[in-house]
């Protein structure tokens, strides 16, 4: 059945005129009989079919042909790789919809598929009519992407506007522009962009290959701008990449957020399902390959100082998300050297253990430009075509330099920010949407003790009980001196107000019931000499939050908070186990705050 985009949603583009005909499907199944059958069925649906008998082969193909496929259908039972793992990889790296297939229709298996991100689960024998409808998954995903982009851009604008209006000077708006008109102007821009984004095909077109160094720039820009104030235009300006478009950045930013959200969801799911996923993953991937779950489970390794590899894994995991967009090209190994060193040094620092939480940050994939942590991402980094699940490092050649990637990777400070953010906005959500100032004050008062307390546990943690709305973990200006380093990070992420943040935060699972978030940020600051948040240890150094910057956070932004439906205080267990939890990223931390 052919449907034109116009009929369905008004989209139009050359490629989509005949949609769903020509849908590019990758079928992965080790059973040659089914491969043949499915190929024929899909061809009958006028789809463009590519078949693959091995999961690894499929991944390679997907990586080689970026944007070469619209959807992946894979059997759960692959001999060379667990189908669920493949599913995760594809979802993270390529962000494609994946349909799982199996002869086994057991609920637990199906659930597992869903948890791993499958957009559908088909039982064999599969009927052709079931395949005819798969285009819906592609369309749905694109629509959501567009919506997300629009949403986030809207949020960004709100932030920017607020920031502008909160401060006497229009720091964030073009000079001479008052918040309102500035916003309007932005709206116009957005609309224009949005129109382009409305076309699913064009959404795809704007994708660029977000190589490691490019992503690094992105993250750096985001950090510099401040997550709460971040906007595609600002990021683009800061990045200084001439060929990059605002849309590219918007899309990337949106994905980044979604990724965080997904991570969070997975955490929650994992936690709620008794970690069944985790067990699967851990058992299957001792090396912690890309598996998200792995990272979660593996976290602990890092702390003990093996951060070398373990850490990497985790990081990778998180990084994965970001990487999927394009081929993550490994950056020069150079940076790695530094991190490594740092890491080592950090290890000895007892404080480092608290870095575990920092892990979260890393996951974000914000490349702390000079991330010093050399974490051995390499292992994890399987994104590259060459990197197999096992030992990525060695295999990755030209593209992948795990270490460098890692450096570039996600170690961003974002997690930290998020956490702070999390604490903030969330609190209002759950308890009372008090003004920021009020919260801040309270937080300040309460924070310290809580923080200190948790810190004694090794990781600055805010016990859940302490994380209340009126506890504002981030104490702006409490130790401003320390925070200096952070100041340059204009509350960046603090304002991760979108739901993804919530999700991430909410993801906190058991670990040491600490508020990862909080701790991380602070921990982070302390490690990095540059950060100037030296006082982190035991002190809660709200990253650079100064009184004047507090307002900019707009945590109390009702719109924002309302936007974060998933964020529920309850679910936010500070004991959430971030993938990075156990990871000590002493090095990373340092790298995170790149000022």
């Amino acid at each position, binding site marked *: 059945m052919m449907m034109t985009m116009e009929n369905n949603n008004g989209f139009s583009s050359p490629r989509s005129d005949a949609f769903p005909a020509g849908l590019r499907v990758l079928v992965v199944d080790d*059973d040659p009989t089914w491969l043949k*059958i499915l190929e024929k069925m899909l061809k*009958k649906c006028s789809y463009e079919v590519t078949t693959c008998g091995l999961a690894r082969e499929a991944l390679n193909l997907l990586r080689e042909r970026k944007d070469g496929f619209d959807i992946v259908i894979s059997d759960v*039972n692959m001999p060379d790789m667990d189908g669920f793992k493949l599913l995760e990889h594809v979802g993270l790296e390529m962000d494609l919809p994946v349909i799982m297939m199996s*002869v086994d229709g057991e609920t637990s298996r199906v659930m597992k598929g869903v948890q791993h991100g499958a957009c559908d689960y088909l039982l*064999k024998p599969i009927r*052709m009519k079931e395949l005819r409808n798969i285009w819906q998954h592609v369309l749905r995903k694109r629509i959501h992407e567009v919506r997300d982009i629009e949403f986030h851009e809207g949020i960004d604008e709100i932030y920017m506007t607020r920031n502008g209006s909160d401060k006497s000077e229009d720091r964030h708006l073009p000079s001479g522009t008052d918040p309102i008109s500035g916003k309007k102007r932005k709206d116009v821009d957005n609309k224009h962009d949005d129109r382009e984004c409305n076309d699913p095909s064009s959404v795809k077109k704007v994708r660029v290959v977000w190589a490691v160094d490019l992503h690094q720039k992105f993250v750096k820009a985001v950090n510099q701008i401040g997550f709460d104030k971040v906007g595609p235009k600002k990021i683009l300006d800061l990045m200084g990449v001439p060929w990059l478009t605002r849309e590219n950045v918007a899309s990337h930013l949106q994905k980044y957020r979604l990724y965080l959200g997904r991570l969070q969801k997975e955490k929650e799911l994992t936690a709620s399902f008794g970690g069944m996923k985790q067990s699967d993953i851990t058992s299957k991937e001792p090396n912690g390959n890309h598996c998200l779950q792995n990272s979660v489970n593996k976290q602990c390794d890092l702390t003990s100082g093996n951060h070398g590899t373990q850490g990497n894994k985790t990081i990778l995991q998180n990084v994965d998300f970001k990487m999927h967009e394009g081929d993550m090209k490994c950056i020069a190994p150079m940076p790695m050297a530094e991190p490594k060193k740092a890491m080592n040094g950090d290890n000895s620092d007892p404080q480092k253990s608290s870095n575990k939480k920092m892990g979260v940050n890393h996951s974000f994939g914000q490349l702390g430009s000079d991330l010093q942590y050399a974490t051995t991402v390499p292992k994890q980094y399987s994104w590259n075509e060459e990197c197999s699940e096992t030992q990525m490092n060695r295999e990755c050649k030209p593209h992948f330099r795990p270490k460098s990637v890692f450096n570039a990777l996600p170690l961003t400070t974002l997690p930290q920010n998020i956490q702070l953010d999390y604490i903030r906005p969330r609190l209002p959500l759950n308890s009372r949407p008090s003004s920021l100032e009020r919260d801040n004050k309270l937080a300040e008062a309460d924070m310290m003790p809580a923080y200190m307390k948790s810190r004694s546990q090794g990781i600055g943690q805010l016990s859940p009980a302490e994380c209340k709305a009126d506890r504002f973990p981030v104490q702006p200006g409490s130790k401003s001196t320390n925070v200096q380093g952070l100041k340059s990070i204009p509350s960046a992420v603090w304002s991760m107000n979108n739901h993804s943040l919530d999700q991430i935060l909410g993801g906190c699972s058991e670990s040491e019931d600490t508020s990862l978030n909080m701790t991380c940020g602070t921990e982070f600051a302390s490690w990095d000499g540059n950060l100037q948040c030296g006082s982190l240890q035991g002190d809660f150094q709200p990253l650079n939050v100064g009184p004047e910057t507090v307002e900019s956070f707009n945590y109390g932004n009702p719109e924002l908070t309302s936007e974060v439906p998933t964020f529920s205080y309850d679910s936010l267990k500070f004991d959430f186990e971030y993938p990075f939890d156990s990871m000590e990223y002493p090095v990373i931390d340092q790298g995170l705050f790149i000022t």
Partner: protein
Amino acid sequence: MEGNAASMRETLFDQGYLDEQFIQLEELQDDANPNFVEDVVKVFYTDSARLIRNIEAEMGKHPIDFEKLDDAMHRFKGSSSGIGAKKVKNECTQFQDYCKEGNAEGCFRAFQVVKQEHETLKRKLDTYFQVFF
């Protein structure tokens, strides 16, 4: 379709050798793939030999890893479902029941039946395709 082929086909369905998946294959057959059904059956029987060997390998282990054995049978069953091999599938399920019980004896017996059905169907389909043409 020739009378012989038609009645043969009907018999195969009536006697439970084939299920509607086979009809799906027939519906997929077209000008682009005029021998699609036969092609798929060929692929199945080529690959199933390998799957059967895998099962036998698992059954020859001491002790038997029933999980792996079940997994091997699972693959075989999945493949059989592709061509609509109804009886074969049913016997596979029986085999898997024994696996779950850890009943090696039962598995051995069930496997013999699986192989028999597998062979029987092959013969019948071979004849069918010959007649069909």
